[in-house]
Protein backbone atom coordinates (compact mmCIF):
# COMPACT_ATOMS: atom_id res chain seq x y z
CA UNK A 1 0.00 0.00 0.00
CA UNK A 2 1.32 3.38 -0.97
CA UNK A 3 1.09 6.04 1.67
CA UNK A 4 1.38 9.66 0.68
CA UNK A 5 2.29 12.39 3.13
CA UNK A 6 -1.24 13.74 3.01
CA UNK A 7 -2.73 10.28 3.48
CA UNK A 8 -0.45 9.62 6.44
CA UNK A 9 -1.52 12.84 8.17
CA UNK A 10 -5.16 12.01 7.58
CA UNK A 11 -4.70 8.51 8.99
CA UNK A 12 -2.95 9.95 12.06
CA UNK A 13 -5.79 12.39 12.69
CA UNK A 14 -8.43 9.68 12.30
CA UNK A 15 -6.44 7.23 14.43
CA UNK A 16 -5.94 9.62 17.33
CA UNK A 17 -9.61 10.60 17.26
CA UNK A 18 -10.58 6.95 17.55
CA UNK A 19 -8.04 6.40 20.33
CA UNK A 20 -9.46 9.34 22.30
CA UNK A 21 -12.85 7.72 22.22
CA UNK A 22 -11.60 4.82 24.35
CA UNK A 23 -11.20 4.91 28.08
CA UNK A 24 -7.42 5.08 28.43
CA UNK A 25 -7.66 5.47 32.19
CA UNK A 26 -9.18 2.03 32.59
CA UNK A 27 -6.14 0.34 31.14
CA UNK A 28 -3.78 2.39 33.30
CA UNK A 29 -5.32 1.94 36.74
CA UNK A 30 -2.80 -0.29 38.42
CA UNK A 31 -1.33 -0.05 41.87
CA UNK A 32 2.22 0.52 43.00
CA UNK A 33 4.58 -2.36 42.38
CA UNK A 34 5.21 -4.69 45.33
CA UNK A 35 8.67 -3.45 46.19
CA UNK A 36 10.09 -6.54 47.91
CA UNK A 37 8.98 -9.25 45.52
CA UNK A 38 12.53 -10.30 44.56
CA UNK A 39 14.67 -9.01 47.40
CA UNK A 40 16.87 -11.31 49.48
CA UNK A 41 15.43 -12.01 52.91
CA UNK A 42 17.79 -12.35 55.85
CA UNK A 43 16.59 -13.16 59.34
CA UNK A 44 18.00 -11.26 62.25
CA UNK A 45 17.21 -9.99 65.72
CA UNK A 46 16.33 -6.41 66.54
CA UNK A 47 19.27 -4.91 68.48
CA UNK A 48 17.33 -2.68 70.84
CA UNK A 49 15.44 -3.94 73.89
CA UNK A 50 15.19 -7.19 75.82
CA UNK A 51 12.26 -8.55 73.84
CA UNK A 52 14.59 -9.39 70.96
CA UNK A 53 11.98 -9.25 68.22
CA UNK A 54 12.71 -11.14 65.05
CA UNK A 55 13.23 -9.07 61.93
CA UNK A 56 13.52 -9.89 58.27
CA UNK A 57 15.98 -7.69 56.42
CA UNK A 58 15.28 -7.24 52.74
CA UNK A 59 18.29 -6.45 50.57
CA UNK A 60 18.56 -5.58 46.91
CA UNK A 61 19.39 -8.37 44.51
CA UNK A 62 19.53 -12.14 44.81
CA UNK A 63 23.04 -12.42 46.34
CA UNK A 64 24.63 -12.86 42.92
CA UNK A 65 28.27 -11.90 42.56
CA UNK A 66 27.76 -8.56 40.87
CA UNK A 67 24.85 -7.35 42.99
CA UNK A 68 25.62 -5.04 45.88
CA UNK A 69 23.15 -5.98 48.60
CA UNK A 70 21.83 -2.77 50.08
CA UNK A 71 19.12 -2.83 52.75
CA UNK A 72 15.83 -1.58 51.29
CA UNK A 73 13.28 -2.73 53.83
CA UNK A 74 13.03 -4.26 57.32
CA UNK A 75 9.95 -5.82 58.77
CA UNK A 76 8.91 -8.17 61.57
CA UNK A 77 9.53 -11.91 61.43
CA UNK A 78 6.20 -13.71 61.94
CA UNK A 79 8.03 -16.90 62.96
CA UNK A 80 9.57 -15.28 66.03
CA UNK A 81 7.51 -16.80 68.87
CA UNK A 82 7.44 -13.69 71.07
CA UNK A 83 6.98 -10.78 68.68
CA UNK A 84 5.21 -12.78 65.93
CA UNK A 85 5.92 -10.20 63.25
CA UNK A 86 5.20 -7.08 65.27
CA UNK A 87 7.75 -4.37 65.91
CA UNK A 88 7.91 -1.12 67.85
CA UNK A 89 8.67 2.22 66.14
CA UNK A 90 12.38 1.81 66.83
CA UNK A 91 12.43 -1.67 65.36
CA UNK A 92 10.38 -0.79 62.33
CA UNK A 93 12.78 2.00 61.39
CA UNK A 94 15.86 -0.26 61.52
CA UNK A 95 16.46 0.36 57.83
CA UNK A 96 17.40 3.96 58.57
CA UNK A 97 19.62 2.76 61.39
CA UNK A 98 21.48 0.28 59.19
CA UNK A 99 21.93 2.63 56.25
CA UNK A 100 22.76 5.71 58.32
CA UNK A 101 26.08 7.36 57.53
CA UNK A 102 26.98 7.64 61.22
CA UNK A 103 26.58 3.93 61.84
CA UNK A 104 29.58 2.40 63.64
CA UNK A 105 31.04 -0.29 61.37
CA UNK A 106 34.51 -0.82 62.85
CA UNK A 107 36.02 -0.99 66.36
CA UNK A 108 37.25 2.18 67.97
CA UNK A 109 39.30 2.83 71.08
CA UNK A 110 39.50 5.72 73.52
CA UNK A 111 42.82 5.34 75.32
CA UNK A 112 43.33 6.35 78.97
CA UNK A 113 43.51 10.12 79.28
CA UNK A 114 42.49 10.66 75.69
CA UNK A 115 39.50 12.83 74.72
CA UNK A 116 38.73 11.23 71.38
CA UNK A 117 38.06 7.90 69.74
CA UNK A 118 40.52 6.42 67.29
CA UNK A 119 40.24 3.53 64.85
CA UNK A 120 41.72 0.18 65.81
CA UNK A 121 41.86 -3.06 63.87
CA UNK A 122 39.83 -6.06 65.04
CA UNK A 123 43.03 -8.01 65.80
CA UNK A 124 44.49 -5.20 67.88
CA UNK A 125 41.17 -4.68 69.68
CA UNK A 126 40.85 -8.33 70.62
CA UNK A 127 44.51 -8.57 71.66
CA UNK A 128 44.08 -5.46 73.80
CA UNK A 129 40.96 -6.78 75.52
CA UNK A 130 42.71 -10.12 76.17
CA UNK A 131 45.66 -8.27 77.71
CA UNK A 132 43.37 -6.24 80.00
CA UNK A 133 41.44 -9.35 81.08
CA UNK A 134 44.63 -11.24 81.88
CA UNK A 135 46.16 -8.30 83.79
CA UNK A 136 42.98 -7.70 85.79
CA UNK A 137 42.65 -11.37 86.62
CA UNK A 138 46.28 -11.59 87.75
CA UNK A 139 45.84 -8.51 89.92
CA UNK A 140 42.46 -9.32 91.50
CA UNK A 141 42.35 -13.11 91.65
CA UNK A 142 41.28 -14.53 95.03
CA UNK A 143 42.26 -18.15 95.48
CA UNK A 144 41.13 -18.54 99.10
CA UNK A 145 38.75 -16.57 101.29
CA UNK A 146 39.34 -15.39 104.87
CA UNK A 147 38.41 -18.81 106.27
CA UNK A 148 40.96 -20.46 104.01
CA UNK A 149 38.36 -22.09 101.77
CA UNK A 150 39.21 -22.40 98.07
CA UNK A 151 37.03 -19.94 96.08
CA UNK A 152 39.11 -19.15 92.95
CA UNK A 153 37.15 -16.02 92.13
CA UNK A 154 37.95 -12.90 90.18
CA UNK A 155 36.00 -9.92 91.58
CA UNK A 156 37.89 -7.48 89.35
CA UNK A 157 35.68 -8.19 86.34
CA UNK A 158 31.92 -8.06 85.85
CA UNK A 159 30.02 -9.43 82.90
CA UNK A 160 26.80 -8.21 81.35
CA UNK A 161 25.12 -10.17 78.58
CA UNK A 162 23.22 -8.64 75.70
CA UNK A 163 19.49 -9.13 75.39
CA UNK A 164 19.61 -10.28 71.80
CA UNK A 165 22.25 -12.97 72.40
CA UNK A 166 21.23 -16.41 71.25
CA UNK A 167 21.10 -19.48 73.50
CA UNK A 168 24.26 -20.84 71.93
CA UNK A 169 26.13 -17.60 72.41
CA UNK A 170 24.96 -17.37 76.04
CA UNK A 171 26.20 -20.92 76.70
CA UNK A 172 29.67 -20.04 75.43
CA UNK A 173 29.66 -16.74 77.27
CA UNK A 174 28.77 -18.51 80.53
CA UNK A 175 31.59 -21.01 80.05
CA UNK A 176 34.15 -18.27 79.43
CA UNK A 177 33.23 -16.16 82.45
CA UNK A 178 33.05 -19.23 84.67
CA UNK A 179 36.53 -20.18 83.52
CA UNK A 180 37.71 -16.66 84.42
CA UNK A 181 36.09 -16.96 87.86
CA UNK A 182 33.89 -13.89 87.36
CA UNK A 183 31.24 -13.80 90.09
CA UNK A 184 29.34 -10.69 88.99
CA UNK A 185 27.10 -11.65 86.12
CA UNK A 186 24.02 -9.90 84.83
CA UNK A 187 22.03 -9.63 81.70
CA UNK A 188 20.53 -6.68 79.93
CA UNK A 189 17.38 -8.74 79.47
CA UNK A 190 16.34 -7.67 82.98
CA UNK A 191 16.29 -4.00 81.95
Amino acid sequence: MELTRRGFLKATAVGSTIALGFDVARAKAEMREFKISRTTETRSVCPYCAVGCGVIIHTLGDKSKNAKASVVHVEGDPDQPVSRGTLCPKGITLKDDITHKNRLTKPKVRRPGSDHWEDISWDDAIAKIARHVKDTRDKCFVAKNAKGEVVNRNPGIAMIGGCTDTNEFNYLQWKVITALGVPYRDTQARV
Partner: protein
Amino acid sequence: MSVQQNLEIRRSSASVWGSQSGMRSVPTVSKYIDTTTCIGCKACEAACIEWNDLRHIATEQTGTYQTLPTLHAEYWNLIRFNERDFDGGLVWLMRKDQCMHCEEPGCLAACPAPGAIVQYANGIVDVNPDQCIGCKYCETGCPFDVPRFHQTTGKMAKCTLCVDRVSVGLEPACIKACPTGCLQFGTKDDMVALGARRVEQLKSNGFTNALLYNPEGVHGTGVVTVLAHGDHPEWYQLPRDPHVPILVRFWKSFLRPLGAIAIFGAVIGALTHYTKFGPKEVRGVDAPDRNLPDA
Protein backbone atom coordinates in the same frame (compact mmCIF):
# COMPACT_ATOMS: atom_id res chain seq x y z
CA MET B 1 10.47 -8.84 37.61
CA SER B 2 7.32 -7.74 39.33
CA VAL B 3 4.39 -9.61 40.70
CA GLN B 4 1.44 -9.41 38.37
CA GLN B 5 -1.14 -7.24 40.04
CA ASN B 6 -4.54 -6.61 38.62
CA LEU B 7 -7.19 -6.10 41.21
CA GLU B 8 -10.50 -5.44 39.57
CA ILE B 9 -11.87 -1.94 39.94
CA ARG B 10 -15.29 -1.66 41.47
CA ARG B 11 -15.74 2.03 40.93
CA SER B 12 -13.72 4.71 39.22
CA SER B 13 -13.96 8.47 39.58
CA ALA B 14 -15.77 10.51 36.92
CA SER B 15 -16.85 7.44 34.98
CA VAL B 16 -20.05 5.48 35.02
CA TRP B 17 -18.53 2.02 35.01
CA GLY B 18 -15.57 0.46 36.74
CA SER B 19 -13.70 -2.36 35.04
CA GLN B 20 -15.09 -5.07 37.29
CA SER B 21 -16.07 -8.01 35.18
CA GLY B 22 -18.13 -9.49 38.00
CA MET B 23 -16.65 -12.91 37.32
CA ARG B 24 -14.90 -13.17 40.66
CA SER B 25 -16.29 -12.16 44.00
CA VAL B 26 -13.43 -10.76 46.08
CA PRO B 27 -14.10 -10.33 49.80
CA THR B 28 -14.04 -6.75 51.06
CA VAL B 29 -11.04 -6.23 53.31
CA SER B 30 -10.98 -4.06 56.38
CA LYS B 31 -8.79 -2.72 59.13
CA TYR B 32 -9.86 -3.02 62.75
CA ILE B 33 -8.71 -0.39 65.23
CA ASP B 34 -9.28 -0.85 68.94
CA THR B 35 -8.75 2.61 70.44
CA THR B 36 -8.93 1.18 73.96
CA THR B 37 -5.78 -0.97 73.67
CA CYS B 38 -3.67 1.50 71.70
CA ILE B 39 -0.65 2.57 73.78
CA GLY B 40 0.39 5.34 71.41
CA CYS B 41 3.74 3.76 70.51
CA LYS B 42 3.50 5.06 66.92
CA ALA B 43 4.90 1.87 65.40
CA CYS B 44 2.12 2.10 62.79
CA GLU B 45 3.17 5.63 61.89
CA ALA B 46 6.80 4.59 61.45
CA ALA B 47 5.82 1.44 59.54
CA CYS B 48 3.68 3.51 57.17
CA ILE B 49 6.53 5.89 56.38
CA GLU B 50 9.00 3.04 55.97
CA TRP B 51 6.86 0.91 53.67
CA ASN B 52 5.55 3.74 51.52
CA ASP B 53 8.99 5.41 51.24
CA LEU B 54 7.63 8.72 52.48
CA ARG B 55 9.96 11.54 53.35
CA HIS B 56 10.52 12.49 56.95
CA ILE B 57 8.96 15.84 57.69
CA ALA B 58 9.98 18.24 60.41
CA THR B 59 7.89 18.12 63.56
CA GLU B 60 7.36 20.73 66.22
CA GLN B 61 6.79 20.32 69.94
CA THR B 62 3.47 21.94 70.77
CA GLY B 63 2.85 20.40 74.17
CA THR B 64 1.44 17.08 73.01
CA TYR B 65 2.85 13.65 72.23
CA GLN B 66 1.03 13.70 68.89
CA THR B 67 3.52 13.70 66.01
CA LEU B 68 1.78 16.28 63.80
CA PRO B 69 -1.27 18.49 64.29
CA THR B 70 -2.98 16.82 61.33
CA LEU B 71 -2.40 14.46 58.42
CA HIS B 72 0.12 15.45 55.74
CA ALA B 73 0.79 14.40 52.15
CA GLU B 74 3.91 12.64 53.49
CA TYR B 75 2.21 11.38 56.66
CA TRP B 76 -0.80 9.22 55.92
CA ASN B 77 -1.28 7.67 59.31
CA LEU B 78 -1.39 9.70 62.50
CA ILE B 79 -2.24 8.63 66.04
CA ARG B 80 -4.31 11.37 67.58
CA PHE B 81 -3.55 11.77 71.29
CA ASN B 82 -6.90 13.18 72.32
CA GLU B 83 -6.65 14.23 75.95
CA ARG B 84 -9.73 14.10 78.13
CA ASP B 85 -10.31 14.73 81.82
CA PHE B 86 -12.32 12.08 83.60
CA ASP B 87 -12.98 11.53 87.29
CA GLY B 88 -9.88 9.39 87.62
CA GLY B 89 -7.67 11.99 85.91
CA LEU B 90 -6.30 12.41 82.42
CA VAL B 91 -7.23 9.81 79.84
CA TRP B 92 -5.80 9.52 76.36
CA LEU B 93 -8.37 8.66 73.75
CA MET B 94 -5.96 7.41 71.10
CA ARG B 95 -7.32 7.29 67.60
CA LYS B 96 -5.61 6.21 64.41
CA ASP B 97 -6.34 8.92 61.87
CA GLN B 98 -6.07 7.72 58.29
CA CYS B 99 -8.19 7.10 55.20
CA MET B 100 -11.37 5.29 56.25
CA HIS B 101 -11.81 3.55 52.87
CA CYS B 102 -15.54 4.27 52.81
CA GLU B 103 -17.89 1.96 51.01
CA GLU B 104 -19.37 5.12 49.45
CA PRO B 105 -16.26 7.31 49.09
CA GLY B 106 -16.87 11.05 49.09
CA CYS B 107 -13.47 11.67 47.48
CA LEU B 108 -14.33 9.39 44.58
CA ALA B 109 -17.71 11.05 44.16
CA ALA B 110 -16.14 14.50 44.07
CA CYS B 111 -13.20 13.65 41.78
CA PRO B 112 -13.59 15.05 38.25
CA ALA B 113 -10.56 13.27 36.73
CA PRO B 114 -11.45 9.91 35.18
CA GLY B 115 -9.70 7.09 37.00
CA ALA B 116 -7.82 9.31 39.45
CA ILE B 117 -9.59 7.79 42.45
CA VAL B 118 -10.58 4.17 42.21
CA GLN B 119 -12.25 1.70 44.49
CA TYR B 120 -10.88 -1.78 43.96
CA ALA B 121 -13.07 -4.85 44.09
CA ASN B 122 -11.86 -5.54 47.64
CA GLY B 123 -13.07 -2.14 48.82
CA ILE B 124 -9.72 -0.31 48.94
CA VAL B 125 -9.94 3.31 47.81
CA ASP B 126 -6.79 4.47 46.09
CA VAL B 127 -5.50 7.60 44.37
CA ASN B 128 -3.89 6.98 41.01
CA PRO B 129 -1.22 9.70 40.69
CA ASP B 130 -1.00 9.20 36.91
CA GLN B 131 -4.55 10.44 36.50
CA CYS B 132 -4.76 12.90 39.40
CA ILE B 133 -4.96 16.51 38.27
CA GLY B 134 -4.41 17.96 41.76
CA CYS B 135 -7.68 19.90 41.85
CA LYS B 136 -8.26 19.15 45.57
CA TYR B 137 -11.96 18.39 45.02
CA CYS B 138 -11.50 15.16 46.99
CA GLU B 139 -10.55 17.26 50.03
CA THR B 140 -13.98 18.85 49.80
CA GLY B 141 -15.67 15.53 49.22
CA CYS B 142 -14.09 13.64 52.11
CA PRO B 143 -16.21 13.69 55.28
CA PHE B 144 -13.17 12.66 57.36
CA ASP B 145 -10.75 15.33 56.04
CA VAL B 146 -8.15 12.84 54.85
CA PRO B 147 -6.75 13.53 51.33
CA ARG B 148 -3.82 15.96 51.31
CA PHE B 149 -2.29 17.93 48.48
CA HIS B 150 1.38 17.23 47.84
CA GLN B 151 3.13 20.51 47.16
CA THR B 152 6.04 19.19 45.11
CA THR B 153 4.25 16.59 43.00
CA GLY B 154 1.00 18.53 42.68
CA LYS B 155 -0.99 15.36 43.35
CA MET B 156 -3.23 14.21 46.13
CA ALA B 157 -1.93 11.63 48.60
CA LYS B 158 -3.52 9.46 51.23
CA CYS B 159 -3.39 5.99 52.80
CA THR B 160 -3.71 3.25 50.18
CA LEU B 161 -4.42 0.52 52.76
CA CYS B 162 -1.08 -0.79 51.42
CA VAL B 163 -2.88 -2.06 48.33
CA ASP B 164 0.48 -3.26 46.96
CA ARG B 165 0.83 -5.55 49.99
CA VAL B 166 -2.82 -6.56 50.21
CA SER B 167 -2.94 -7.53 46.54
CA VAL B 168 -0.16 -10.09 47.08
CA GLY B 169 -1.81 -11.44 50.21
CA LEU B 170 0.02 -9.51 52.93
CA GLU B 171 -1.47 -7.34 55.65
CA PRO B 172 -0.89 -3.57 55.58
CA ALA B 173 2.40 -2.38 57.09
CA CYS B 174 0.77 -0.61 60.06
CA ILE B 175 -1.24 -3.69 61.00
CA LYS B 176 1.80 -5.93 60.92
CA ALA B 177 3.81 -3.63 63.14
CA CYS B 178 1.23 -3.03 65.92
CA PRO B 179 2.74 -4.64 69.06
CA THR B 180 -0.42 -4.59 71.20
CA GLY B 181 -2.63 -6.12 68.54
CA CYS B 182 -5.08 -3.23 68.69
CA LEU B 183 -4.82 -3.19 64.89
CA GLN B 184 -6.11 -6.21 63.03
CA PHE B 185 -6.66 -6.95 59.36
CA GLY B 186 -9.03 -9.31 57.59
CA THR B 187 -12.28 -9.45 55.72
CA LYS B 188 -14.84 -6.83 56.61
CA ASP B 189 -17.16 -9.49 58.05
CA ASP B 190 -14.45 -10.84 60.34
CA MET B 191 -13.44 -7.39 61.52
CA VAL B 192 -17.03 -6.37 62.27
CA ALA B 193 -17.51 -9.61 64.23
CA LEU B 194 -14.27 -8.96 66.14
CA GLY B 195 -15.42 -5.41 66.88
CA ALA B 196 -18.81 -6.60 68.09
CA ARG B 197 -17.15 -9.01 70.53
CA ARG B 198 -14.83 -6.30 71.84
CA VAL B 199 -17.74 -3.88 72.25
CA GLU B 200 -19.63 -6.49 74.29
CA GLN B 201 -16.57 -6.97 76.47
CA LEU B 202 -16.21 -3.22 76.98
CA LYS B 203 -19.89 -2.91 77.87
CA SER B 204 -19.57 -5.61 80.51
CA ASN B 205 -16.51 -3.75 81.84
CA GLY B 206 -18.55 -0.62 82.48
CA PHE B 207 -18.19 1.26 79.18
CA THR B 208 -21.91 1.11 78.46
CA ASN B 209 -21.66 3.45 75.48
CA ALA B 210 -18.99 1.45 73.69
CA LEU B 211 -19.51 1.34 69.95
CA LEU B 212 -18.02 -0.02 66.76
CA TYR B 213 -17.65 3.05 64.54
CA ASN B 214 -18.73 1.95 61.08
CA PRO B 215 -20.92 4.87 60.01
CA GLU B 216 -23.98 4.19 57.88
CA GLY B 217 -23.84 7.63 56.25
CA VAL B 218 -21.03 6.44 53.96
CA HIS B 219 -22.42 2.85 53.85
CA GLY B 220 -19.80 1.67 56.30
CA THR B 221 -16.05 2.15 56.26
CA GLY B 222 -13.17 -0.13 55.39
CA VAL B 223 -11.62 0.86 58.70
CA VAL B 224 -13.78 -0.06 61.68
CA THR B 225 -12.94 1.57 65.00
CA VAL B 226 -13.88 0.46 68.51
CA LEU B 227 -14.69 3.50 70.65
CA ALA B 228 -15.10 3.16 74.41
CA HIS B 229 -17.11 6.39 74.44
CA GLY B 230 -19.24 5.71 71.39
CA ASP B 231 -21.74 8.37 72.37
CA HIS B 232 -19.08 11.04 71.85
CA PRO B 233 -17.25 10.31 68.57
CA GLU B 234 -16.23 13.98 68.52
CA TRP B 235 -13.95 13.27 71.50
CA TYR B 236 -11.98 11.16 69.04
CA GLN B 237 -12.26 13.86 66.36
CA LEU B 238 -14.60 11.69 64.35
CA PRO B 239 -17.75 13.05 62.71
CA ARG B 240 -20.94 11.83 64.36
CA ASP B 241 -22.79 11.16 61.13
CA PRO B 242 -20.47 11.50 58.11
CA HIS B 243 -22.01 11.96 54.68
CA VAL B 244 -20.79 12.74 51.22
CA PRO B 245 -21.34 16.53 51.13
CA ILE B 246 -24.71 17.49 49.66
CA LEU B 247 -23.08 19.93 47.22
CA VAL B 248 -20.90 17.16 45.79
CA ARG B 249 -23.98 15.00 45.36
CA PHE B 250 -25.92 17.87 43.77
CA TRP B 251 -23.08 18.66 41.39
CA LYS B 252 -22.38 15.06 40.46
CA SER B 253 -25.92 13.67 40.23
CA PHE B 254 -27.73 16.75 38.92
CA LEU B 255 -25.56 19.53 37.53
CA ARG B 256 -23.15 17.29 35.65
CA PRO B 257 -25.81 15.22 33.85
CA LEU B 258 -27.64 18.45 33.17
CA GLY B 259 -24.51 19.91 31.61
CA ALA B 260 -24.04 16.77 29.54
CA ILE B 261 -27.66 16.97 28.33
CA ALA B 262 -27.18 20.63 27.52
CA ILE B 263 -24.09 19.93 25.41
CA PHE B 264 -25.79 17.01 23.72
CA GLY B 265 -28.92 19.11 23.11
CA ALA B 266 -26.85 21.91 21.63
CA VAL B 267 -25.18 19.51 19.19
CA ILE B 268 -28.52 17.92 18.22
CA GLY B 269 -30.05 21.38 17.85
CA ALA B 270 -27.24 22.55 15.62
CA LEU B 271 -27.50 19.45 13.46
CA THR B 272 -31.26 19.78 13.17
CA HIS B 273 -30.92 23.41 12.25
CA TYR B 274 -28.35 22.53 9.62
CA THR B 275 -30.50 19.83 8.02
CA LYS B 276 -33.60 21.99 8.10
CA PHE B 277 -32.24 25.39 7.10
CA GLY B 278 -28.79 24.66 5.78
CA PRO B 279 -25.64 26.63 6.49
CA LYS B 280 -25.84 30.28 7.20
CA GLU B 281 -24.83 32.24 4.15
CA VAL B 282 -23.81 35.83 3.90
CA ARG B 283 -26.24 37.47 1.52
CA GLY B 284 -24.36 39.81 -0.73
CA VAL B 285 -24.57 41.07 -4.24
CA ASP B 286 -22.20 38.40 -5.53
CA ALA B 287 -23.48 35.48 -3.50
CA PRO B 288 -25.98 33.25 -5.24
CA ASP B 289 -29.23 32.82 -3.36
CA ARG B 290 -29.35 29.28 -1.99
CA ASN B 291 -31.82 27.89 0.44
CA LEU B 292 -30.72 24.26 0.43
CA PRO B 293 -27.27 22.75 0.79
CA ASP B 294 -26.05 21.09 -2.37
CA ALA B 295 -26.93 17.47 -1.97
